């Protein structure tokens, strides 16, 4: 059967003049249960204090939800734990929790944040059709999600962006926001969750004339057909396996990337496809990308994947605009759901020369690290196959 993949994208932007964002999003995939949980929390005020409130709230809400605690008890625990603001003498952080079961059954708990939106394709779904009830001032909604649904959570920084401007005195009104999203989805029906979240945040930032008046954040949960990506890196340990590797690439259904000059040569020889190196993408840090018929991207090996690993570890995934080889690989990694690494384990002896100006890592280890990051931080389904 055609499985549904749940993609989660999040983007945030701190209030102008602050170092950190007072909105926090956390998510977790529970592989065994097939559950996906996302929490967006908006801490009182902005800056570091708000960030701490929101981080505490989000992590408590996430863990209580994982443990299937009743809503009332979770809410009470959160309330009793949050520190009291020294100026306002109150403690407060709003939150929205989305809890998605393996079959698409979704429960959303809302407290204080603007109401979430659901789009089925490019059409907004009416909340009246959902079962909703209130406990402890928390609105609980239940519905069955289908393929091509998107759940959109956002903080009041989005809905109140532009407030006070002559043309939008009440901020970004919900009807206009819905229309904005609907237009985007009509033009780009397969837009990734990350991209949609980024577009919404950027627009809110623009509404605030590029000086955010509050923390702005948006999270998108997108139910979609899984997108497959094959990353092939390294020559096979035994030469006899060269043909197997080439056939795996040829017959793979999805996007294909080759990382490694020697690997590319092997595939080129086995499949009889020429490689065309494009010097225009050269920069001092990384060698340029190449192209081969039937393969979506060909890059150099260890330096490029080392950079990919470094960026995946550090960056805000929406924030890269670098078009060098590593930037292009990251773009592909984030845009796909199921990622298979086909890793040849032959060691390149020339790379072990101690007189080299840089240390070249062993490919197998770097790929393992990337796979781990993709699973834990970006919630991708990852498989590694050594050859």
């Amino acid at each position, binding site marked *: 059967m055609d499985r549904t993949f749940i993609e989660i994208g999040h983007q945030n932007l701190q209030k102008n003049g602050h170092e950190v964002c007072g909105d926090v999003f956390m998510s977790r995939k529970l592989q065994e249960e097939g559950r996906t949980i996302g929490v967006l929390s908006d801490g009182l005020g902005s800056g570091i204090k708000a960030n701490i409130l929101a981080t505490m709230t989000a992590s408590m809400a996430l863990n209580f939800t994982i443990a299937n605690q009743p809503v009332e008890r979770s809410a009470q625990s959160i309330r009793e734990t949050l520190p009291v603001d020294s100026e306002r003498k109150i403690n407060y952080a709003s939150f929205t929790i989305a809890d998605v079961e393996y079959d698409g059954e979704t429960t959303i708990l809302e407290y204080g944040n603007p109401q979430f939106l659901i789009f089925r394709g490019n059409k907004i779904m009416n909340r009246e059709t959902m079962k909703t009830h209130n406990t402890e001032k928390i609105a609980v909604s239940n519905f069955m999600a289908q393929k091509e649904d998107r759940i959109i959570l956002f903080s009041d920084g989005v809905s109140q962006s532009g407030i006070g401007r002559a043309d939008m005195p009440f901020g970004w009104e919900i009807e206009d926001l819905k229309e904005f999203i609907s237009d985007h989805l009509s033009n780009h029906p397969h837009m990734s969750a990350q991209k949609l979240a980024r577009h919404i945040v950027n627009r809110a930032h623009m509404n605030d004339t590029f000086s955010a008046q509050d923390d702005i954040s948006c999270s998108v949960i997108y139910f979609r057909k899984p997108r497959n990506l094959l990353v092939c890196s390294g020559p096979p340990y035994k030469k006899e396996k060269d043909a197997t590797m080439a056939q795996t690439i040829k017959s793979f259904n999805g996007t294909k990337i080759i990382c490694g*000059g*020697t690997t*590319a*040569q092997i595939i080129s020889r086995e499949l009889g496809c020429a*490689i065309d*190196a*494009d*010097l225009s993408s*050269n*920069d*001092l*840090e*990384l*060698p*340029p990308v*190449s192209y081969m018929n039937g393969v979506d991207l*060909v890059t*150099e*090996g*260890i*330096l490029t994947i080392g950079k990919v690993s470094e960026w995946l570890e550090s960056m805000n995934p929406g924030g890269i605009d670098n078009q060098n080889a590593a930037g292009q690989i990251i773009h592909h990694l984030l845009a796909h759901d199921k990622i298979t690494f086909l890793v040849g384990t032959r060691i*390149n*002896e*020339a*790379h072990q020369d101690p007189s*080299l*100006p*840089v240390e*070249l890592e062993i490919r197998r280890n770097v790929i393992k690290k990337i796979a781990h990051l993709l699973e834990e931080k970006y919630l991708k389904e990852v498989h590694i196959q050594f050859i």
Partner: protein
Amino acid sequence: MNPNHIYQVRICTGTLCHVMGGALLPELKPYLPEYLKGKVQVKGMTCADYCKQEDRKPPYVLVDDHLIESASIEKVIAYIKKCENHDSKQ
């Protein structure tokens, strides 16, 4: 050699060549003397295993079929100049 000959410069974009200075080579064109501009085409190539030889000296550049080791922009231009002079003497 044909006076309209276009020199095909192919720069190895492999890992070893890149870290040993090959990263600078794609910037070759602006350094060409006036009379050679338009006579040189610069391309990349994936690792052709020159670095696997016993006595390896990356980065590698191929000018037509001539292999230049420990290549630098100066070295590549000097070689092309030498070819040109050699031609004009004939």
